[in-house]
């Protein structure tokens, strides 16, 4: 029988003792070969779902099948089909990159000759060939993340779970990891379940995005469709004289509902009118602008629309994901 390398989740719940309901009835479906981005702030329940889908944490209720295997009753089947790079790159600081590859390949039952070939191939693929003989404690955050990804791929899994793979990485390392994930999905047909709190990451990588907040999916579709749902752009105005910010806000208020803006600026989601009419209205009030910007809808706008809060910065200062 042909096995489907997708993910089916139905009403998944996880409650922690004396804690909140970290995951509150999540249902979703990921098709084989799809990149599914799970977007939400810290503490939204993203990592808890990944832990359940990778069989590392039992659900309180609900069901899920990964690669056709039930995550509770057939956990060995799930584990054999998936690769996972979890939130912290769990590496042994005293082993080298190559020793990690050898350990992982051996535990996955690769033959001795294949271990070396596969290890070298993956180290080269993630750009760690030269650092392969060095102990991991000397690696940068980006190198650790790349090694973590390579380790998750040793046994050629059909489904890959990446839990916030680029958190804390510099832009260059982040971009390199994005390229690799895109390559895996497009060229190798790997199903990717990716959690992130970065809007740009979900936008660039994911075929479909699930937006999660307080343990529930609040929106789910392709990034384009989600943004199209918002439809209207926002306009942000920065007065040349900061003392006139209230007057600017009042004028903008005629064109739509106020949305969060950067310091010293006012912004509205345009409900009627366009940039030209706004400019004319500001000009009529003799309000001189230092900057006037028309912004197309982003996934953050979608999050704002669905939850009443902005995703950007909403989880700052928190740790973990619950």
């Amino acid at each position, binding site marked *: 029988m042909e096995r489907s390398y997708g993910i089916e989740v139905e009403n998944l719940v996880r409650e922690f003792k004396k804690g909140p309901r970290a995951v509150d009835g999540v249902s979703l479906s990921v098709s084989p070969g799809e990149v599914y981005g799970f977007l939400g702030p810290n503490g939204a329940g993203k990592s808890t779902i990944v832990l359940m889908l990778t069989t590392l944490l039992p659900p309180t209720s609900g069901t899920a099948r990964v690669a056709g295997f039930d995550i509770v009753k057939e956990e*060995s089947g799930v584990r054999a089909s998936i690769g996972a790079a979890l939130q912290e790159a769990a590496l042994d600081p005293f082993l080298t990159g190559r*020793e990690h590859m050898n*350990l992982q390949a051996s535990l996955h039952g690769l033959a001795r000759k294949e271990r070396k070939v596969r290890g070298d191939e993956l180290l080269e693929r993630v750009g760690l060939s030269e650092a392969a003989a060095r102990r991991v404690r000397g690696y940068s955050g980006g190198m650790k993340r790349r090694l973590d990804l390579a380790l998750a791929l040793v046994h050629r899994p059909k489904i890959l779970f990446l839990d916030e793979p680029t958190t804390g990485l510099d832009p260059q390392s982040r971009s390199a990891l994005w390229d690799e994930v895109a390559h895996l999905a497009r060229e190798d047909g790997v199903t990717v379940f990716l959690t992130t709190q970065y809007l740009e990451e979900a936008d660039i990588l994911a075929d479909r995005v699930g937006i999660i907040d307080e343990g529930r999916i609040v929106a789910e579709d392709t990034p384009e469709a989600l943004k199209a749902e918002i439809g209207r752009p926002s306009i942000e105005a920065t007065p040349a004289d900061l003392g006139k910010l209230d007057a600017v806000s009042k004028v903008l208020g005629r064109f739509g509902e106020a949305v969060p803006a950067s310091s010293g600026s006012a912004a509205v989601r345009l409900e009627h009118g366009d940039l030209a009419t706004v400019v004319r209205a500001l000009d009529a009030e003799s309000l001189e602008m230092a900057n006037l910007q028309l912004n197309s809808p982003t996934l953050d706008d979608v999050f704002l629309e669905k939850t009443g809060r902005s995703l950007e910065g909403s989880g700052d200062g928190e740790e973990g994901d619950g």
Partner: protein
Amino acid sequence: MDSSLLTQISVLSRRSVVRTLRQPAMVIPSLILPMMLLAVNAGGLTSATELPGFPADTYLDFAFAFPLMQSAMFGATLAGSEFARDIENGFLNRLALTPMSPAALLAGLLSGVIALALIQAAVFLTVGLVIGVDIKSGFLGVPVLVALSVLTSLGFGCLGTILALRTGSGEAVQSFFPLFFVGIFFSSISLPRELLGGGWFEAVATVNPVSYLVEGMRSLVITGWDAQALALGFGFAVALFAAGLFGASISMRTRMERT
């Protein structure tokens, strides 16, 4: 035992040994501190040899079991805290997502304990012989002494592993270290049981398994080949190891189910 299990044990053992050897800051104190305490005890308690019925010619010979026993405690704490670190930093999750057998993981962990115990025994014996410890059981007694020492380390290593599996915290494991020490001091480590005065201390030392482990090791140094002391020593060491292994296996299964 199938070949994949053997491979798993082999790579996990190698990792454990390599980790141990690559952390001199962890190994060196476990070599120096027991020898320092031996020096302090041997220097300060020399007059104990004048007690009627004291079984050794020098207190150095009598106390030589102390570093071996203490090193077993170090091994337990080290094994436990190292494993707890694997749990804390998610490395156990990584291993759990492979088809690894929990038995292989346990065997790998204990290989690190054996490696450390062998290093410690080699260093203590070398230093002991240099400073004048007279091993009455002779050349053949040395491997027996090492075997008993390693077996004891394995038993305590299992206890450390259980603590790690139950608590999942390196700090929690290390907080048990003083308790292990209490176990040593409430034994016949400093004086023979018959010279403890017959009070509560002697009663505690008599029911404390550590006394029999110490006396087994000590007999090889100060007596020669004492069948009863060796039987009790090895008997308690095997029992401790078996009970520890059983407890660690149960805890491992529970943790892997949770993991």
